[in-house]
């Protein structure tokens, strides 16, 4: 039983003023926007809105291959699952994957493989899940754009971003980025995926009637359109980090409001922790020298703690001597302060001799 409201299938793809039905020029893209990091569970994810297409892509991996026999010992495998939601199209689609979805999954995989370093992931798989929530013509192109974004978002090294965009022909005119109706009633459709680094084509399909000249014009349009989408991809990836840095700035600002108190309390607590110790040893000291006191106290403590447990036999003696002499030295240094500059030398010399004898 056919559903009540049929889709329009007249051949008209242009308005009276020569523009396309949605008011675009022949070489104009539909409105495009994208976003990354939209699915929290995924390693990387992206949402692409291309015309009325609404497409989510998520990356899981690199991770273990299931079933095991698909694993390759010398390289990783890429698995792409392109699926359409039952409510994404005019007439409800059965939830089971059909032949069309399987084919599109394969061509998208082959469009992505050339930009990945799969040889770096032996015995593993990278999974790309694409879910078309709303379809509006050109879903395989928009899906590839989304997959590329999601892979970049997942931090998987890539030679280049890829961008999917279609050219086609309707009512005798070559068009960029076919809409739903142009796709269905038009004369030709060339979905392309462009590797942005060298402008090579990694996905190419074609059906319809077109002369070679028209096809060349179509490719020109595609390269022009891809560049625009590419810039938006980069923007979306940057935006993710801009968001993080903005968030960090806000948190920083909040922290700096709180920290002055914290810093004070922290420094106070250390002061109070050390000063009684030092004041015990050097009761008569002047306040100005307290900083030096603390330093010497540290010197006093550290060698004892680190050396005594690990040393053996005669060495312990020397180390103990070392420690005590350092302690003496420190004491003298502190108690005598400026006057003691010459008197520092003898104990040092005395200290050097025994160690030299032992060796």
């Amino acid at each position, binding site marked *: 039983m056919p559903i009540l409201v049929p889709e329009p299938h007249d051949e008209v793809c242009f308005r009276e003023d020569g523009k396309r039905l949605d008011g675009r020029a022949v070489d104009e893209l539909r409105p495009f926007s994208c976003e990354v990091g939209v699915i929290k*569970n995924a390693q990387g994810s992206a949402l692409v809105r291309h015309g009325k297409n609404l497409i989510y892509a998520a990356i899981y991996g690199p991770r273990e291959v299931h079933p095991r026999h698909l694993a390759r010992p010398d390289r990783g495998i890429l698995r792409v699952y392109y699926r359409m939601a039952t409510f994404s199209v005019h007439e409800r689609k059965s939830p089971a994957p059909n032949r069309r979805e399987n084919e599109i999954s394969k061509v998208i995989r082959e469009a992505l493989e050339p930009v990945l370093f799969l040889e770096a992931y032996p015995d593993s798989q990278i999974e790309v899940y694409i879910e078309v*929530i709303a379809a509006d013509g050109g879903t395989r192109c928009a899906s590839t754009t989304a997959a590329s974004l999601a892979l970049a978002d997942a931090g998987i090294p890539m030679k280049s971003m890829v961008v999917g965009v279609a050219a086609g022909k309707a009512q005798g005119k070559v068009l960029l980025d076919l809409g739903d109706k142009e796709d269905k009633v038009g004369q030709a459709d060339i979905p392309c995926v462009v590797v942005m680094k060298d402008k090579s084509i990694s996905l190419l399909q074609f059906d319809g009637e077109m002369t070679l000249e028209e096809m060349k014009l179509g490719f020109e349009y595609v390269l022009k359109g891809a560049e625009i989408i590419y810039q938006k991809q980069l923007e979306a990836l940057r935006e993710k980090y801009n968001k993080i840095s903005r968030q960090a700035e806000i948190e920083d600002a909040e922290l700096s409001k709180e920290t002055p108190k914290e810093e004070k309390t922290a420094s106070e607590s250390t002061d109070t922790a050390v000063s009684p110790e030092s004041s015990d040893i050097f009761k008569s000291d002047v306040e100005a020298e307290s900083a030096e006191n603390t330093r010497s106290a540290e010197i006093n403590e550290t060698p004892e703690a680190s050396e005594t447990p690990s040393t053996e036999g005669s060495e312990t003696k020397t180390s103990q001597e070392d420690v005590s002499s350092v302690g003496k030295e420190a004491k003298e240094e502190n108690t005598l302060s400026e006057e003691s500059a010459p008197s520092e030398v003898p104990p040092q010399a005395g200290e050097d001799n025994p160690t030299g004898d032992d060796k």
Partner: protein
Amino acid sequence: MMDINDVVSNLERNYILKLLKQGKRIDGRGLFEYREVKIKTGFIPKAEGSADVFLGDTRVMCGVKYDIGAPFSDNPDKGVCTVMTEYVPIASPMFEPGRPDEVAIQLARVVDRGIRHTNCIDYKKLCIKEGEYVYILFVDCYMMDYFGNLTDASAIAAIAALLNTNLPGAKLNEKGEPEWDGTYAPLTIYEIPLSISFGKVGDVIFVDPNLSEEMVLDGSIAFAVDEKKQVTSIQKYGSATWTVNEIMETSKKAIEIADELRAKLKLRQHVQQSNS
């Protein structure tokens, strides 16, 4: 699904259990505190109705499509509504592509029963010609991000999408076949069922388990509650056992929480008056 131990470490597991026994939750909620719910409707142009529901970080998208077909022979004057759930692997590293497994089928049936047994949709209005042509509604829920309690999120998504639905009207032509009469109208929905799920660990019971709690709990129970403060459907999941007393107490709690949630969500605002 993967072994739960792969997802929650023993350390985290013990910590969650310890907290629950003290009446605390790992995400800082109280035992009977629901996560925040956000709903967006009408965003899928080709679906008759749609909803995108966030329950905390759990996300479920739902779209409603229709078809014209023959009614069931025992209800020749009533339309049909089927709920289906898809555990799309986009949502979690634990979900795998393939046919819906028993977990997905159970979830679909629980949500379906919540709607079916609540006198929710006016099925008689979905009949075009008795015994021959009725509307068949497909309510398809897609799990988009899994952070626990898909039952409640799906139930909210399903009812929000149904409220948001506009069906093309039908009339019979000379041949007696249905034809579009040029209008669209929202569904007639009498009752808004909500689902409230509880988890159980030992003898601690808590509402709306999140992902890590769902991984360690012994069992859970979902109640569908209608606007008349009645429990219309119950499903027990997992291997925990519940005493009659616990079930009665939890039912009361479910009605309370559902009431609160219903007042907060104001789901009827998602009804879309058709412009034709």
